[in-house]
């Protein structure tokens, strides 16, 4: 696996790459973008397309660093306000001028697209009001101190008022309202088949190498590999682990990868409701208490695992073993948190200390169609747990059934994309005590609750100084991990295969952006 100083190489590639005349690029992607409407659904395939047609106030580079986008600069004004100064002379694809009023329109729209699964409201949770101070200045007032706002806004595509007013999702899909400021213009959208974009010669960003770009949906990993081998496409995303060797050894094809933001973790439930059908005594008898409510048990389950072996043998090197939920180099990653060492003896001792010298019976649940190799990973986990006396059975279910019953499971495997690029999305959505009023724990279905952690999270997220906020977040992460709130296993690796002569700085957020694919 090649790991690079990603930012540097991206900049070098951008500087060295020469625009080539009349070049077409064919991209084979696994995920289906369900719409061209950039506020319809917050998922990687949709965002990959939206990031080409539209721009955001702030952008993220391949390694997740925040860069200026449509906003040239931004600054906090007191505790409750942000001022964004917009780039001058930006034109929409139809020639109209981009102004602060378009940003105001966008913020209203992104929160409320009828009938949409959405998912962008969370990034605007802190926003109380938006106003255009003048054509080039946006003032955002927040409900509470929101130092993370510029980062959150890297997820909100800016759409135009003149094309978007009164338009619904189907107007974006037909191209009528798909008027952006981005590197490419909308050309054609064939639902679930392919999307064609053409270069925007007036884009404000770096030189783009392609005149026409086609994203073709090839959902089966084998199909992507054969299309790449046959030369039908120039670049593919997420090749299957089993195909990597073949792709690497084929002349004319190169493979590049980076540890991604998506973490795969196990989370147990401390509750004693439906969970107890999946936790029994060593001889199958009822238990009056949930062993997983005891931090010593959670810790024992963690150190019973050999994460490196799981990554090497089952994930075949397409993941990085981890003891926390962010990859190295990300904001609020801590080098002090090591990958827990496997220690079966210490694990047994901890179980005995917690009052389970003979262990117990446990059923662990895993979705079988969502994360690569997850059922095999959980099989290995079950063997390692059985070795310390926790007799574990594995139940794997399709995601539709799994997700509906998730809150009843005793312990389960899940993944999180970390859309905030720091520790906060896990701390707020998954580990926060479920509380509608405070906007906490929207995805917390395990019932975990730690008031001290909630407090630390809230405090950390109101610090404006980046270095201090990072330290405060790391402190919260450490508390959560010491408490065994989740057992992180590994970060998935994001991989691309491309024909020789192309370079693409592998992105930690899984997105395939044609504008950043360069010719050597």
């Amino acid at each position: 696996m090649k790991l690079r100083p990603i930012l540097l190489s991206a900049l070098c590639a951008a500087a060295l790459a020469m625009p080539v005349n009349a070049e077409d690029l064919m991209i084979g992607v696994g995920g289906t973008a369900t719409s061209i409407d950039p506020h319809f659904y917050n998922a990687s395939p949709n965002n990959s397309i939206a990031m080409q047609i539209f721009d955001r106030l702030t952008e993220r580079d391949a390694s997740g660093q925040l860069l200026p986008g449509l906003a040239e600069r931004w600054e906090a004004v007191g505790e409750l306000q942000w001022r964004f100064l917009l780039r001058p002379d930006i034109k929409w694809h139809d020639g109209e001028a981009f102004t602060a009023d378009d940003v105001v329109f966008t913020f209203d729209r992104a929160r409320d697209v009828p009938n949409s699964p959405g998912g962008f409201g969370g990034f605007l949770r802190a926003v109380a009001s938006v106003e255009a101070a003048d054509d080039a200045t946006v003032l955002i007032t927040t409900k509470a101190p929101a130092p993370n706002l510029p980062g959150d806004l890297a997820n909100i595509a800016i759409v135009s008022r003149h094309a978007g007013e009164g338009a619904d999702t189907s107007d974006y899909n037909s191209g009528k309202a798909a008027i952006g400021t981005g590197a490419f213009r909308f050309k054609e959208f064939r639902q679930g088949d392919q999307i064609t974009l053409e270069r925007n010669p007036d884009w404000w960003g770096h030189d783009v190498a392609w005149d026409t770009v086609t994203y073709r949906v090839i959902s089966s990993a084998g199909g992507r590999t054969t299309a790449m081998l046959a030369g039908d496409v120039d670049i593919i995303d997420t090749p299957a682990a089993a195909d990597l060797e073949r792709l690497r050894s084929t002349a004319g094809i190169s493979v590049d990868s980076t540890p991604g933001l998506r973490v795969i973790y196990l989370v147990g439930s401390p509750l004693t409701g439906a969970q107890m059908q999946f936790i029994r005594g060593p001889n199958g008898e009822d238990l009056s208490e949930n062993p997983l409510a005891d931090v010593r048990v959670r810790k024992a389950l963690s150190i019973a695992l050999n994460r490196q072996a799981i990554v090497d043998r089952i994930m075949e090197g397409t993941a990085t073993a981890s003891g926390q939920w962010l990859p190295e180099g990300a904001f609020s990653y801590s080098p002090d948190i090591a990958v827990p060492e496997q220690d079966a003896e210490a694990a047994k001792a901890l179980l005995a200390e917690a009052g389970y010298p003979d262990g117990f019976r446990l059923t662990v649940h895993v979705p079988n169609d969502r994360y690569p190799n997850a059922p095999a990973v959980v099989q290995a986990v079950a063997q390692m747990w059985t070795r310390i006396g926790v007799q574990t059975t594995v139940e794997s279910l399709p995601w539709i059934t799994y997700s509906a019953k998730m809150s009843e499971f005793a312990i389960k495997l899940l993944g999180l994309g970390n859309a905030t690029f720091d520790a906060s999305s896990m701390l707020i959505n998954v580990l926060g005590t479920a509380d509608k009023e405070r906007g906490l724990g929207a995805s917390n279905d395990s019932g975990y609750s730690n008031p001290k952690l909630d407090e630390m999270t809230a405090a950390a997220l109101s610090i404006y100084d980046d270095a201090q906020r990072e330290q405060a977040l790391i402190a919260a992460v450490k508390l959560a991990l010491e408490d065994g709130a989740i057992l992180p296993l590994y970060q998935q690796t994001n991989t691309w295969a491309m024909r020789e002569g192309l370079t693409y700085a592998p992105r930690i957020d899984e997105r395939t952006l044609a504008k950043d694919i360069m010719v050597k």
Partner: protein
Amino acid sequence: MTLWIVQRTLQAALVALAMALIVFLGLNLIGSPIETLLPPEATHEERLRLIADLGLDQPMHTQFFLFLKGMAQGNLGISYVYKEPAIELILSRLPATLELALFAVLLSLVIGFPLGLIAGYRPDSFAAKAIMTGSILGFSLPIFWVGILLIMVFSVTLGWLPSSGRGSTVTILGVGWSFLTWDGLRHMILPAFSLSLFNISMVTRLTESGVREAMSSEYVKFARAKGLSPRRIMSVHVFKNILIPIVTVVGLDIGTTIAFSIVTETIFAWPGIGKIIIDSIAALDRPVIVAYLMLVVLMFVLINFVVDILYRILDPRIRLQGE
């Protein structure tokens, strides 16, 4: 005849209704589309709004009643995932599947029928034995394996044909068709062939047994005795008599090929309804699943209808039920 058509239509309506009910109850048992639809970053408000927007906060019987009401007005609901009318979504994908399936059935007739005639006419020849042994392979090789093999040989190694996708299309009547362009045809050859392999074998074997049976019948012997040429015996007398079982099977085949081309479409990334139905089942996109199944019922009813009429043309002695 009129009575027969009325009976058929009523039957079809009943089947469609029963199926809608089963799908409704079944999907409700499997799980909730909300968890699959919502991104993990979604807020509580977004969750509640989506549930209300999709009408999933209503009790089951109200949802079913609303669905029936919509159907009476020709509206099968809006896809949860794509937010487009389910019926439009299905119909926009149908041409791709239709042309692939029809091309495959055509291939199976063009290849299977002559092979069956040869094998049946001289059953003891080497050619006949080779054809009959080969047809067993066609039955037993799994489609996905054949598909991958074809891609590896013709796309990756030889580089003659594209590995996947549909190629360029020509728009006629607002619908894109790929069989009208050279590029589109090239894209169609591999998926159509792997889809037709099973049918080729089936047609070959049916023709072969039909011909063998006919060759030993009285009327063929009589024709021979009369001194008719073998060509005329085959093309007029034998041909007509062996057609009935073949029409039945091919008729049913068109239906199953369209309805179950899912595997082939996945391997070749062919943008047909097979692909969208798999995606919709994975997302519990109920309106699309129901619309698709309605279409399949309708299709089978239509095909059976055509087959029955063909029977009558081929053999005037056959009378239709209720006639």
